[in-house]
């Protein structure tokens, strides 16, 4: 029999029983829609975490101090005093792979301007800090190396601070106080918005690290060293080099553990991704189970349909239909039902994702992969669950089938 005729016969059979066909495919529709929507939500959150971390700079490498585990008691990294400015200088002088490097200190405090005040966070570094952390100057300028050397009381501020203590006033040249120390505002930072973790990336002020070290915290050690590799590909070798140089700088013996810890953005991404990927697998499998249940629904209906249409099958065979024609017809009917369910399910799933995005404000991402995956999966389900009923139909004896009541 011609393939087109099989399609025609299957379509006629399906449209002959519209309500039942609809109820049959409903399981598949829900299953596919669930897969699409779940994957969209999963990928969406994954993607937005990735974007947030990337926006901090994909080449970024963070070095934080850790206390060696010698005494058996680990202290928090902020209390550990192993990272010094001389480490930064040592790395600057000896590394061939580092693109830029800066010391980092940060802390919270109240910023005051006139009668307005606002709780915020102060970050500090050298003149390369903005480049490493992917911040941009909106107006004004960055501090100079001379200002760093002299621990000048200058700062750049983010948009949130401007909104809260300056209002419409131009902040450049004004003096604000942080922890009772007056800072002259020399620049503002370009707005970055909230990141995925809900953190306001504009609620910050930035000052030379010398100023923060000497004038605010009066300490000689650093909270962290931030540096950037020349490219994403060279992150691993740069990390290795920095580890080697820091061990030299700290004069660690081979038997001693590192007294610092290096985290790359890639690791940060994979930390968060592993959580969201686990969620993705979990959500995906629940959705896949509903697809399988939908497939069993198709099998059930096809099986009933074979019994119900025994006479029809006998008639088709009497009129010249071969066993393989009947097999193809029923297999194709099952396939058509599941593919139809799949297509409707994909549309419903996309619609559901869009609704989730707009109503709940969650980030969603419908990928071609998830569409392809669920489409292939329901095609497979159609063939898999359609096979047995179709075999049963094709194995009927036409004489007995025609006599069937």
């Amino acid at each position, binding site marked *: 029999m011609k393939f087109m005729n099989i399609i025609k016969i299957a379509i006629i059979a399906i449209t002959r029983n519209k309500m039942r066909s609809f109820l049959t495919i409903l399981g598949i529709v829900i299953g596919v829609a669930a897969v699409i929507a779940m994957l969209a939500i999963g990928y969406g959150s994954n993607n937005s975490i990735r974007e947030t971390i990337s926006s901090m700079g994909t080449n970024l490498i963070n070095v934080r101090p850790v206390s060696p585990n010698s005494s058996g008691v680990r202290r928090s990294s902020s209390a550990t005093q192993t990272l010094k400015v001389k480490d930064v200088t040592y790395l600057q002088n000896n590394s061939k792979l580092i693109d830029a490097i800066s010391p980092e200190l940060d802390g919270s405090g109240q910023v005051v301007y006139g009668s307005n005040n606002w709780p915020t966070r102060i970050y500090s570094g050298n003149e390369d800090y903005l480049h490493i952390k992917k911040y941009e100057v909106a107006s004004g300028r960055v501090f100079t190396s001379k200002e760093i050397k002299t621990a000048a009381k200058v700062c750049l501020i983010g948009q949130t601070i401007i909104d809260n203590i300056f209002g419409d006033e131009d902040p450049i040249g004004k003096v604000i106080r942080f922890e009772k120390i007056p800072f002259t505002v020399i620049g503002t930072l370009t707005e970055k918005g909230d990141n995925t973790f809900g953190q306001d990336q504009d609620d910050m002020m930035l000052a030379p690290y010398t100023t923060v070290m000497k004038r605010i915290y009066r300490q000689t050690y650093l909270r962290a060293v931030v540096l950037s590799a020349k490219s994403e590909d060279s992150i691993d070798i740069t990390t290795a080099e920095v580890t080697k140089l820091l061990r030299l700088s700290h004069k660690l013996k081979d038997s001693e553990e590192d007294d610092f810890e290096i985290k790359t953005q890639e690791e940060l991404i994979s930390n968060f991704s592993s959580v969201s990927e686990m969620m993705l697998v979990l959500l995906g499998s629940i959705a896949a189970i509903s697809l399988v249940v939908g497939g069993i629904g198709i099998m059930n209906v096809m099986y009933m349909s074979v019994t119900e249409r025994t006479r029809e099958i006998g008639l088709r065979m009497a*009129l*010249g*239909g*071969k066993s393989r024609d009947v097999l193809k017809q029923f297999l194709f009917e099952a396939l058509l039902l599941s593919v139809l369910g799949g297509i409707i399910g994909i549309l419903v799933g996309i619609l559901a994702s869009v609704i989730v995005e707009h109503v709940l404000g969650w980030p969603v991402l419908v990928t071609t992969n998830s569409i392809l995956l669920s489409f292939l999966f329901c095609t497979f389900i159609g063939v898999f669950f359609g096979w047995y009923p179709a075999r049963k139909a094709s194995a009927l004896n036409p004489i007995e089938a025609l006599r069937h009541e």
Partner: protein
Amino acid sequence: MNNQEIIKIIDMHKNYIVGDQKIRALDGINLSVPKGDFVAIMGSSGSGKSTLLNILGCLDLPSSGDYILDGVNVKTLNKNKLADIRNQKLGFVFQSYNLLPRTTALENVELPLLYNRLVSNAERRERAEEALISVGLKDRMKHLSSQMSGGQQQRVAIARSVVSNPVVIFADEATGNLDTRTSYEIMALFQELNNKGMTICFVTHEPDIAAFTKHSIVIQDGRIVEDRSNPNSQNIVDSLAKTTEDKSNH
């Protein structure tokens, strides 16, 4: 004469094994049906006429003996070849019509041609329409089978049986579910087809229906006990007129 024989059966036996018992459903049948014949196969239930019809219709194979259909010995064919024979050389009309439910008359008539690779879509449609016109259902092509009376449904079934231009039509109690008048109308259709040269084998247990055929055989216990031609077969048109008269007298 030999090439004019559509059906030739030589010493055919068909046995079934039920438990340890061997049942001889057909026990040495010899039969010859020439082209253009209209033969009634009669017999009580259990006589073996259904078994014979199944073998004649290429749905079953004999245990021994030969069945030559239109010059082809059916015994040598496999399942798929038998399906092709049924599709291209045979037409079937059943007692209970066996139309596809919720399907139009036209689609029902097209059904056998769907299983024939050589027929194009356009030709299929055209031949199905012609067949429906020839059974007097020109205005009902798009009607669903469930929207038609028994007589109309059987007409659709007859159109379906002739659409593939078969060499012989097998009708199994084709008037069994119909009232007398409609039965006669259906027989008139069969006579008309026969007059155009179609060979028809008509299984029935009603002698008055058999009276309209040219040739009748009676089967009993798997053997043909009577095989006679019916030179003064009644013309259906007279009988139809008579039923109309009966009705008006009442």
